[in-house]
Structures are given as structure tokens and as C-alpha cells.
């Protein structure tokens, strides 16, 4: 860029700074010379750097300086010298040294250790004696004392220490408040060739217009103005936009896909009786999945009500003896009180059970979906959470079959960005056949397990729908799909609500 153009694009702040650049080398000097505040001067320098007029160099300077005790020792002498002087004049028991030398208890202890290690003193029956080495030492200036003096003259950079000073420094570092290391951040700059010629160029009329104002437009004065040139390539500060939570963006998308495929959304509660969550889904009352360690039971209100007798009796008879269909059932005495207990839904399949119970035959064929929160009583870690998302679907159509189930699941996985899906045999008490869905993760080159699907057993559909028809059903987890998409590796990060994360998280773009 030629210098003329640069001059025309200078901001008033830069115009103030440019003339003093030649005589300054640091931000501090620029502030002193121009009288600008630090932020203004820094901004001007950064803009000039963008224009390649100068280069800002940030330096961190460390300086070893005297701390409170150091300053005191400089005046009074090091405690160990005072200790040694005191005991060289008279033999004293340890406990009296403090008062005699004016040292506190802690200093006395430190001195004892220090001087003993230097063999400057010897202790005999609790009486401290100065050794020959000690007496010699008293006559000389010590390395530590020389170092204190040097520091008192304005501090030393750690890199500038002589070997002797380094020795003293290492000792002082371990002791209390003798020295400290101050860190000073220095902003320095160097002029480039452009910068140098800039400082030699006349700044010209300072009256170039910075902003176009409504007044200029009203009175036509804009016609006489030249507008300062902007650096249009400059990076601008980020703005925060309003934004949906990334998990909700993904679940909204999943809903949209199901709606496109002709599915109707199911609604329902999170708190349900065991009857709907387990019994209606032909899960025997002693099945381990109903254990307290997996399931959130409610302490209050502990129990709910059972639905009308037809459904309850149908379910009871199915559990006990397979109802009136050719099934053995689970062959035990079903207990209505167990079914009354309230739980937080362990799967969205509870919505399917309720939907089937309410569905009339004239509404067949019918397809339903839900995407919702489910609950599991377990400790949190990177791959376990007590709340998780499932997507649920059912197809009620006498003509459906297993191949259709696989067809729907495959298509849905495709829409979520997984072109390869695999199906494995699985087991759930309420579906037969049962399927486990895996999708192939192209970048990790591995199969990722997503969860289950199947065809509802007649033991489920007969009490709820009144007939043995193959109701296709699925309820895989949705969290892993979201984690893969957003690059989240810890499940808890889906709900940590760190606003910075929310502001910067990528948009769901499928």
C-alpha cells in the first residue's frame, strides 16, 4: 500500500501517535508523549500494525526484587549474622538467644539449622558455641549479603545472575519474604519501512471526516468532506446472537424427519405408573430392569392409579398365563400394587404403550413418534447420565413386517448422516424379534451402538389394541448421535450450559 493511501485512512488516534513514533520504542513512551490513555494508544498501535507500519513485540520481563523481610535484613543484617554475633559474644542456651539477638522464634529455628549445616556453630548440652569456621565467617561479607545489596540497587533479571548470586538466590527462594520475582509486561514496537516513511510524511488536514452523520446529510456538508479510508480487511469484534440450544436444534431436526415420513408426535408425562412403564410392556414384575438401582421410583407421591379394569385385567392375565392367546405368559401371580408405583419414565416406549391403549381400530394404519427425555438412576460420568434422550416410533398397520422395521430405521439413520446401518439380534421383554441398531462411523471407522427396536409381542398389543398385529417399535438413544455431530466427547457437556460453549457451538446444519 502506498503511504499516501495509508495517511488517508488514519484514524484520529493514529494521527496522534504517528508523529511521536520515531522518538519512542515502547507503548509506555507513546502514552507519555501523546497523553492518550493506554487502551487508546494500544488500539492505535494495533491498527498501525495491521497497516504494516510497525510490529508490536510483547515481552515479559522478570525482575528479582527485595521483599519485606529482604528490606529489613538489608538494614538490620541477616538473622544468621545477628545470631552468630550474639552467640560469639556470650555462651547462651538456645531458648535465650531470641531475646538476646532480637530474633523471633521462627528465625532462631531457621538460623540454628542454617548455621549448623555450615558448621559455624556447635551445640553442646543446649548451649550454642561458635566454631572456628563461624568465627572466620563473621569477619567476611557473605554471598547472601552481597546479593541483598545488589538487589537494593533496583533488581536483577533471573537471566543476569552470576553463579555466586544464583547460589544466594536459591537459598533466599526457600526463605520467607526475602525476595520476590516481579513480572513486567512490556509492549515494544519496531518500525517497518512503511512505518519509517510514514513518520516522515506530512499528516495533512486532521479534519477528514470519520463518520457520515445525519447532520452532514441534512445540510449537505458531506459534499466538502473527504472520508477517512477504512481498512476493510480488518477483523471485527464478535457479536453474540440469540440461539437455540444445540441439543434442541438436533431434536427439532429429528422431529422434522419423522413428520416428513408421516409420523404423528406423541405427548405424555415423564412421571408414570409402573403399569404403563413396565407392566403394559410385558415386563415381568421381578425383571431386573425394575430394580431400584436402575429405576427412579418416586418417594412422593409414591403411588398412582391404575387405568380402567379392562386394560388392567388384560395385562394381568397376559403376565400370569398368556391371556387368551397361545402364549404361556410369565406364569406368576401379578400384583396390582407393584404396578401402581410411580416411576420416572425409563424409556419413551411408555408413550407408545399409552398411545396404543388409546388408539381406535378405525384410525389404523397409524404412525407415531416421540423424541424425549428419559431417566436412569445412575452415577454420572463421561458416558452415563441420569437423563438421556430417546427417539421413539411405532407403526400400527396389520400389513407391517420385520423388513419394514429395518426399512424405517435405515432411512432415519441415513437422514441423520449415517449411510451405513447394521442390525443385530437383541433382547427386550416386549419385542420379538428384537434388533440392536449399529451405525458405521466413517471417520472413526467403527460401528457405534445406538439402541433397540423390534416388533411388539402379541402379549403387549392384545391387551392394549385388542389384536395380534405386528406393531413396529423402536427407541434408540439420541445422545450419541448428537455427541458425534457436535464433536462432544463427554456426555455431561450436552447439558453443562457453559454460555461460551453455547455461543460458539456449531449450528445443526442437516
Amino acid at each position, binding site marked *: 500500500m502506498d503511504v499516501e493511501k495509508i495517511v488517508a485512512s488514519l484514524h484520529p488516534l493514529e494521527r496522534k501517535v504517528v508523529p511521536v513514533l520515531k522518538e519512542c520504542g515502547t507503548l509506555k513512551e507513546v502514552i507519555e508523549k501523546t497523553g492518550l490513555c493506554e487502551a487508546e494508544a494500544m488500539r492505535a498501535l494495533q491498527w498501525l500494525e495491521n497497516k504494516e507500519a510497525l510490529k508490536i513485540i510483547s515481552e515479559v520481563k522478570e525482575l528479582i526484587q527485595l521483599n519485606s523481610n529482604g528490606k529489613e535484613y538489608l538494614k538490620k543484617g541477616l538473622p544468621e549474622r545477628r545470631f552468630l554475633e550474639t552467640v560469639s559474644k556470650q555462651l547462651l542456651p538456645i531458648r535465650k538467644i531470641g531475646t538476646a539477638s532480637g530474633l523471633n522464634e521462627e528465625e532462631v529455628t531457621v538460623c540454628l539449622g542454617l548455621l549448623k549445616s555450615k558448621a559455624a556453630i556447635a551445640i553442646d548440652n543446649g548451649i550454642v558455641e561458635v566454631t572456628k569456621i563461624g568465627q572466620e565467617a563473621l569477619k567476611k561479607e557473605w554471598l547472601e549479603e552481597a546479593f541483598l545489596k545488589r538487589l537494593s540497587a533496583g533488581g536483577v533479571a533471573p537471566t543476569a545472575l552470576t553463579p555466586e548470586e544464583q547460589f544466594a538466590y536459591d537459598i533466599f527462594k526457600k526463605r520467607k519474604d526475602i525476595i520476590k520475582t516481579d513480572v513486567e509486561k512490556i509492549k515494544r514496537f519496531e518500525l517497518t519501512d512503511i512505518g519509517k516513511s510514514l513518520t516522515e510524511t506530512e499528516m495533512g488536514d486532521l479534519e477528514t471526516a470519520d463518520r457520515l452523520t445525519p447532520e452532514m446529510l441534512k445540510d449537505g456538508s458531506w459534499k466538502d468532506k473527504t472520508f477517512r479510508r477504512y481498512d476493510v480487511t480488518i477483523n471485527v469484534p464478535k457479536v*453474540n*446472537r440469540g440461539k*437455540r*440450544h444445540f441439543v434442541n436444534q438436533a431434536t427439532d431436526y429429528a422431529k422434522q424427519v419423522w*413428520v*416428513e415420513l*408421516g409420523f*404423528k*408426535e*406423541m*405427548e405424555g*408425562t*415423564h*412421571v408414570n*405408573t409402573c403399569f404403563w412403564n413396565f407392566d403394559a410392556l410385558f415386563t415381568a414384575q*421381578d425383571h*431386573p430392569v425394575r430394580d431400584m438401582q436402575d429405576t427412579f*421410583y*418416586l*418417594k*412422593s*407421591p409414591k403411588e*398412582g*392409579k391404575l*387405568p380402567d379394569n379392562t386394560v388392567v385385567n388384560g395385562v394381568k392375565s397376559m403376565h400370569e398365563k398368556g391371556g387368551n392367546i*397361545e402364549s*404361556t*405368559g410369565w*406364569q*406368576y401371580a401379578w400384583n396390582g400394587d407393584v404396578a401402581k408405583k*410411580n416411576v420416572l419414565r425409563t424409556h419413551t416406549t411408555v408413550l407408545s404403550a399409552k398411545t396404543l391403549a388409546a388408539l381406535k381400530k378405525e384410525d389404523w394404519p397409524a*404412525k407415531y413418534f416421540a423424541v424425549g427425555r428419559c*431417566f436412569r*438412576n445412575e*452415577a454420572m460420568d463421561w458416558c452415563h447420565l*441420569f437423563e438421556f434422550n430417546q427417539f421413539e416410533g411405532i407403526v400400527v*398397520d396389520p*400389513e*407391517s413386517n*420385520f*423388513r*419394514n422395521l*429395518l*426399512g424405517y430405521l435405515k432411512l432415519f439413520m441415513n437422514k441423520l448422516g449415517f449411510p451405513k446401518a447394521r*442390525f*443385530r*439380534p*437383541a*433382547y427386550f421383554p416386549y419385542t*420379538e*424379534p428384537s434388533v440392536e441398531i449399529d451405525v458405521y462411523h466413517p471417520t472413526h471407522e467403527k460401528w457405534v451402538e445406538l439402541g433397540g427396536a423390534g*416388533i411388539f*409381542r*402379541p402379549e403387549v398389543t392384545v391387551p392394549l389394541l385388542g389384536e395380534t398385529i405386528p406393531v413396529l417399535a423402536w427407541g434408540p438413544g439420541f445422545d450419541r448421535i448428537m455427541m458425534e455431530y457436535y464433536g462432544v466427547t463427554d456426555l455431561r457437556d450436552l*447439558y*453443562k*450450559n457453559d*454460555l*461460551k460453549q*453455547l455461543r460458539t457451538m456449531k449450528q445443526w446444519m442437516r
Partner: protein
Amino acid sequence: MPSVKLNKQVFSNLVGKELSDEELSEQIPMIGTDLENVGETEIDVEVFPNRPDMLSEQGFARAFSAFIGEKIGLRTYTVKPSGSKVIIDPSVAAVRPYTACALVKNLKFDDEKIREVIQIQEKLHVTFGRNRKKLAIGLYPLEKIKLPIKYFAEDPNKVKFQPLESEQEMSAIQILSKHPAGRDYGHLLEGKDKFPFFSDADGAILSMPPIINSHRTGKIGKDTTEVFIECSGFDLNTCNICLNIIVTALADMGADIYSMELEYSEGKKITPDLDARRIKLDVPFINRWLGLELTEDQMSELLAKMGYGFDSGFVLVPAYRADILHMVDIAEDAAIAYGYENFEPEIPNVATIGEEAPIEVFRRRIADILVGIGLLETNTYNLTNAEDQNTKMGVDIKLAELESAVNTDYNVLRAWMIPSLMKVLQDNKSNEYPQNIFETGTCFKLDETTETGVNEFLRVAVTLCGAEVDFTRIKQVLDCLFDAASVEYESRETEHPSFISGRVARISVAGIDVAYIGEVNPQVLEDWGVEMPVAAFELNLTELYKHLKIN
């Protein structure tokens, strides 16, 4: 799910074919088990709970061998009558009414085989036996006991024996508190007047099911060649199947099975009964269910790969299968044998109309409006704790509580949303201000008129947090929301402990209260450790939506 370790060498001997690691990794999951690992010498699998017969190496290999076409069809086992009896005293009816028993002879035990037998027993106890509650298994060296056996119930203070791995004799009641197995499983007998026992012809106690065997008569060793096996529980059918699973596994090790006569008061029964169950194969049903067009022959061939027999239109179900309740179970096995990977996925041409739940559409519209005025949406848990919901907010709402939550920070269901947002503000003190956030979510209130006693509402809460925040700002947001939804609302003065007195309003629509709005009380901010002013409102979307729908 129970995991089972298979010794690779033993396994492939049983299967009758050596397979490469790749073949094992590919085939094992397709039979309906989760493969964990194929290692140097061991294979780790997780068996689904519907297949207790696959919990042993023998049972697993039997199923796998058929599946890969090596040894297909029904396996038959010879049961010779032993002529020995088990007398079941009516006194057990009230504590543990049933047992199924057998003798197994010609065993060749070594350490490895004993390990296998213990593994089968333990896995069956945990899964099929529901931690011994439903069912427990005992094995006893035949050389130490004298037939016939008696199964009876007696006052636990009156019966004494030396429990397994114990130095001394104890009374049955003492065992519950003094023996490790007694402490683990004692709750299954606690409070009963009489405990169940097995004893031999000399009256020596063999065991106290489901807790512990006797040390003297109930310990299997390398020298044991003949055993007495019993399964006791509450359902005879379950006991029978469990016995069948064990004796067939032992028979696959090379042993011989002998039946016993069980003298129940209602009549005599002979166990084990290893005759296959006959079920009429419903070919059209299975084809319809699976979307296939298989002939009866093709279907019976598939079922042979799952270990079934077939005889003139009837499927022969092995006596060790616990999971065949209905024709669908046979359909699934046909599907597994057919290979899930061989099914052609197909979307049927069924016309149905897709639709989102209207309230969910409404909820998204509300979120979009708030996003449009620059708010950031959060997503927090439904679960929280009473301190956050009540104490820190200066209120006392009755909450729906959870039983035995593992994580005590999350043991109630939230009754309102603003505390959830306060928590977000608390966690984000180091992030840039202003922090203007909102969330839509479910809130839970006690309500006896509902099916569960809990009523659930959809709510939206907004909190504005920053130096410039005040009542006007938050009211602007609410006003904008109602404007966008074309809803007229009224505000009136009110008091609420979570808000500054004189700066809180109740909002109503058509005479129904739907929201609180105000500047959050500095005491609340202090309790949360939030050092910036907060203004907030919380609006009941369920109520608002009802209003919109009527009008």
C-alpha cells in the same frame, strides 16, 4: 447382562470346528449375544437374559455349533431312571414350595470343570434365579449322602449344621447373621416361621436353600464322580428348566443323567424331563411377521440351525429353552437363522399424515421469538434438589421427590424453571456479560387429580443478567413475547419472596394467572453467589396455549 468367559479350546472342541478370530467376531453377535472380546485364550460374551441356557460354555457352544451349521437340529439326551426318591414335605409350601432334582453320574471333574460348574451355577443364580429369590441350585457329592432325600421346612432355631467353609456347627438362625452367604441372602428367609432344608436318609442336613450347603455333604471336589442336584423355588416350571439347563451342560461334558421320583403330597413327579415341547409351526404367521415367503421346509431348516427339531408340522422345542412363550419367539429364531443382514429393508407405501404435537409447535414458536430478540437458549435437567428449588429462592414449594437417587444433588423434580437458570448464571460467572438466557421445559407439581399425583406443565423462563438489567428490560421481553403471540395480558402488583418487594408483578391472561415477573431479590442472588443484577419471568405455556386454542 451376565457376561460369560469361554475357554477358546474347550469351546471349539464343543463346537466341533475351529474358527478364526475374525469368523468368531463376525458370527457370535449374529446369534444374539453381545461379543465383548475375542482374546488369546478366552472369548468374553454377554448373554441376553432370555437365554439362560447359553450361560455355560456347553450351552453356548451347543447353540453356536447349530447356528454355524456344524451340529444342527434337536440334541437328544438319555435320561435313565435312578429309582431314587425325594420326599417333599407339605411344610415347604409356605416358604419355598417346589424343587426339581436329578442325579448325574460318570463325572470327570478337574479344576477347570469345577470352575465351569460353579460359573453356570452362579450365572443362573444371578439372572434366571433373580439372585436366588426365584430359584436356587444345589449340587452335592453323592458318595457323602444316603438316599432318599427329604425336602422339608422346620423352625430355624431347632436345626443345626456346619455351613460350607465354616469351622463349626451353627443354628439356621445363626447362619443368617454369622455366615457371609447368610448375610448376603438372609433377607430371602428373614421373618419366616420355618426355613426350608434338604436332608438325607440319615437326617443329615444337606443344605438350607437358597442360602448355603452343608460343609460335610455339600462340597464338590476333584474326586466327585456322582452328584445329586436340586433346584428349589416358587415355580415348578422354572425349577424344571433350570435343572434341564444344568444336567444337559453336564451331559455335554460327558456325564450321564438319571431321573428321580419326587413325592409331592399332590402326586408323584419325575424329573428331569428332557422331552421336547411340541408346538405346531405356524408358517403363514411367521412369514407375515417377518415379511418373508418361506416354505415349511425352509423354515424347519432355519429352525434346525437354532437347535430345534421338526416332526410333521410340529416344532420340537428343547427342554432347556426358557424363552419360548409364543410363536413370535420361534419367528425371531427363524429370523436369526435367516440372518438379520439378509433381510431386505423396505419402506411400505402407507399413507399417513405427519404432525407435530401442537403444544410442541407452540413451544418452538416461543423459543424462536426469544431467539429473535437475542436470547440464548439453555437446556438443563428436570432433576434438581430442594435447596436449589426452595432454600436458595426463599420459597417453600412441595416437590415431587425421588426414592434412593444415586446422586443426591438430583433427587427432586423441578417445580419451577427460574432456579435452573439461576444455576446456569452461577456456573457462568467467568463468562461475558450480559447473560440473557431462556429455557422452555417441563415443571412438576403435586396434584391428586392426575393419574400419578403429579401434574406436568410446560413453562418458559427468561433471566436477564448484567449491570444494566432492570424491571423495564424484562418487561420489554415479556411484552414482546405477548405482542408476537397477539395475546392481551394484564399485570398487577404482587409480592414474591424471590423478587424485590415492589418490583414484582403477577401476569394474567383472560383472568388466569400465567406468570411472575420481576427483579430477583438480592438475597437470592447472594445465596446463588451471582454478583450481577438479574431480572426474570416465568410463564406457564400450557395455560397460555389453552387460552390461545380457545380463542
